[in-house]
């Protein structure tokens, strides 16, 4: 079973995206706490694409696909902005961020802590980030 949707490149559409993902996971009996964790990881990736992705075409979208297997859930996040491989990104040290009073910089850290598998693939046309999370479905 797979679902997908496109959201406009806009920070204030992230809330709607989160609702979509929440509904789909809920439909597949994913427990609330885990749903929120996965929604958070997808939210971080989408926010980064919108904020840092430097997509030239304002009429473009971030595409999110969600598919289920027995072990868990795959999220594919596809965009057409600058290629950015979060797997290769070295996260900063939390203590340094706190000491220097940074107001950000922990998004990718969260994604990596939450997700069980991360794959990145970039073609001239688009970037695909694939995130997998193991889930014990409620029924």
């Amino acid at each position: 079973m797979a679902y997908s949707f496109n959201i406009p490149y806009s920070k204030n559409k992230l809330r709607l995206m989160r609702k979509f993902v929440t509904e789909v996971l809920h439909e597949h009996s994913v427990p609330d706490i885990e749903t929120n964790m996965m929604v958070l990881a997808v939210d971080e990736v989408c926010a980064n694409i919108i904020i840092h992705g430097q997509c030239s075409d304002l009429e473009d979208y971030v595409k999110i696909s969600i598919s289920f297997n027995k072990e868990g859930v795959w999220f594919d996040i596809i965009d057409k902005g600058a290629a950015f491989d979060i797997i290769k990104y070295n996260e900063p040290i939390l203590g340094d961020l706190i000491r220097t009073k940074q107001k950000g910089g922990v998004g990718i850290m969260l994604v990596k802590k939450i997700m069980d598998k991360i794959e990145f693939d970039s073609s001239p046309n688009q970037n695909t980030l694939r995130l997998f999370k193991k889930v014990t479905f409620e029924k």
Partner: protein
Amino acid sequence: MLEIVQTNENNYISIAVTGDADASSSIKLDKGLRSAFDESHSNIIIDCTNLNYISSAGLGVFMSYIEEINQTNTTFVIYGLSEKVLKVFGILGLDQLLILKNTKEEALVELNGL
């Protein structure tokens, strides 16, 4: 979709945070905290009973005040986090770097215990 309401009580400032603290809204949270700190009150409690969601942008705002809290000896207590939001604070261990309490009563005990 984030609402920040500040109430000044006798010996503390209370800030109620309602809604989603995400990439688009967390700047509001920052403004709210900034103005509370600018009043240099030594006791600040944050009511998160109606905080539905927090992303790294919202966590980052709280993070950025940790130094100031320590340097200014401010008692800064967050209370009322739902289980799912509390778990998000826990991912990076921020639940160890900030004072988190379940209820307003417990938060006030923390202030008065000083």
